[in-house]
């Protein structure tokens, strides 16, 4: 049927159905992305209307900037810790919730709640907790670890970011893990029990391999979110104390908008894109290779 339609009609259909979306997508994502790459080879300073071609200079400035590497390394550490902790907590919660507990629906809904709130608000909530509530508790109970605000020390501020990230995303990942765990066929587990397998063995040999798709998805999502974090960074620590928790997204933003170095800023962003794309794709690829088919 489709083959016999007139060309005009086919073009018409294309424009009506796919046209708007394609147009908008191109103009909002493709064009700026390509233009962004173009910009990294010019010396645009954000204000002037003319710019000159400068080759790889922006990349040189960006990639030779120690602050950029400090920030990237910091983000990497943050992402690794964040991804593993989030997934560990999420899986742990999911495991307990699917092992026959009362009111699991209530808990499931409850643990998910932090994820509903946007990063900005979450950051402010925890900023209050870390700078006002914990110090009070710490001083009252004599716990030196909590006597001062965690946000005024670089190491503690780093962990503050991690904690809030885990808190924010563990519920979300937990929900995905629950779905994965629930789909593990009961018969397999029963059969294993009959054979005398303990919980730990069941976990390692049956459950974990079978929920691999969930694991891949969760890792993918948490890696993406950790690398791109900005809202939380802004409201919780604002890169402080003394710029020690400036993660890479904030660094890109500041290079461009604070230090007025738009070319290097965009170069950093492009580099970041390659890093994130590489890590995500690698993670999915290696994950899928080991996937167990049902």
């Amino acid at each position, binding site marked *: 049927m489709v083959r016999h339609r007139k060309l005009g009609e086919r073009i018409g259909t294309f424009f009506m159905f796919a046209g708007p979306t394609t147009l908008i997508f191109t103009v909002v994502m493709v064009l700026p992305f390509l233009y962004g790459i173009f910009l990294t080879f010019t010396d645009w300073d954000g*204000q002037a209307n003319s710019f000159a071609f400068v080759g790889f200079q922006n990349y040189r400035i960006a990639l030779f900037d120690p602050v950029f590497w400090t920030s990237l390394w910091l983000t990497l550490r943050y992402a690794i810790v964040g991804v593993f902790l989030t997934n560990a907590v999420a899986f742990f919660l999911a495991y307990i919730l699917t092992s026959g507990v009362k009111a699991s629906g209530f808990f499931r809904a409850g643990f998910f709640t932090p994820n509903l709130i946007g990063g900005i608000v979450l950051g402010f909530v925890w900023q209050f907790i870390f700078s006002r509530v914990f110090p009070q508790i710490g001083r009252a109970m004599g716990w030196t670890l909590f006597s001062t605000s965690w*946000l*005024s020390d670089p190491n503690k501020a780093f962990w503050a970011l991690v904690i809030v990230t885990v808190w924010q995303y563990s519920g979300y990942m937990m929900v995905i893990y629950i779905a994965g765990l629930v789909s593990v066929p009961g018969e397999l587990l029963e059969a294993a029990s009959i054979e005398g397998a303990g919980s730990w063995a069941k976990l390692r040999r049956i459950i974990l391999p079978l929920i691999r798709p969930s694991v891949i998805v969760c890792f993918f999502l948490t890696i993406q979110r950790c690398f791109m974090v900005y809202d939380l960074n802004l409201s919780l620590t604002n890169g402080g104390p003394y710029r020690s928790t400036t993660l890479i997204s904030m660094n890109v933003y500041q290079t461009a908008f604070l230090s007025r170095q738009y070319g290097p800023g965009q170069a950093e962003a492009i580099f970041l894109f390659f890093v994130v794309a590489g890590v995500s794709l690698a993670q999915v690829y290696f994950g899928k290779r080991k996937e167990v088919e049902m």
Partner: protein
Amino acid sequence: MTRKRVVAMLLILSLFSFSAFADVHITLLNTKAEIQAQLEDVAKVFSAESAGITLEIQPVQASESPFQALSTLYASGNAPSLAMMDPADIPLFAEKFLDLRNEKWVKDSTDDFEAVKTKSGAIMAFPLTVEGYGLIYNKAVLAKAGVDPTKIHTTAALEEAFQKIQASGVDALIIAPMDWSLAAHFLGVAYSVTARNQAGLESFIADLKAGRADVSKNKAFVGLLDTFDVMKKYNAGKSDPLAITLDECPALLGRGKVGFYFMGDWAWPALSSFASDQNGFGFIPVPLSNNASDFDNSGIPVGVTKYIGIDKMQNTPEQQAAARAFLDWLVYSKSGQNALVNTCSIIPAFRNIMLSPTTPHPLSESIRAYVAQKNTLFWVSIPAPDHWSKVGASMQKYLAGKIDRRRLYAEINDFWKSTK
């Protein structure tokens, strides 16, 4: 008499011409967060008095620099009609601002406009505020401790004062750990003393960028940081210096819980809300050495701290005219002058404004006294948009004891060497 009539006629004419258009909507980007609420009131008064113009005040985040805010607005096509900027930022937007050299208020101003003049003599902005900063002291606290503020002209004398205050049962001072306060204002004293004027500043900065100047060998920087060491020792917040919030400081000084607080006169609105004696405060200079006769130990930096530029690129001619009318209104109309002096507690940069504040403003008075005695230092507006953030971070590390003095010098030098 005639002048007033002419002004009145001009105002009426301009009002007429504006009422001819439908409501012209103009915006003012406010980079003085502490007067946000006051400016909104001023905007209401102005809009009510000016038929056909509505003025909206746009705030800026406390953590964002004026430069950041305005560049983003220009980049996204949303430039405000009026932009309140630091002097150093005005030249960066010069090609976008209206030339105001022929405005009436230029001649009535006490400012020399050096910071905002282009090479061709165009004046790019309106001087909004005259401000100063230094060590604000609480008269009652000092009196009780037996300290005479007028006699503190050396670092040693300052330390002695701190000790006396401490002995009287009160903390000596509170240091606000904000990056902008430490880098732009506190360190500003050292830049000011080294530079002496705008030309001197430009050459000093050029030397720093080229690596010809080294702050560790600069007497002003060394002396200032020596004083800072003394301040750190007696800082009420020294157990966790970076956890002190900006709001705590005026509360502590106002309530007499500390004797000194380094800040500018813009802290007055916050301070007055905590002060029992509305007249009980003043400024003393930050001493840079132990030589009492050094000029710099007697003066505080005073200057025009905020200028307002009018955008000519993204605002219509009607909006530009409305913006110019607002500036005229501030200088020449009763309610405008009242807005400056009383509502916003600003020291205006205009000779013709004779209005005295109806409510006490001891910090302004202190500044006027220094101006009268010609004991003022050049007000420095640092010509690097991220100085406050990066060098501020270094100062914070130094305040918290994370780096030593050598490292601080190195970081300041490195900052300039790596800035364009």
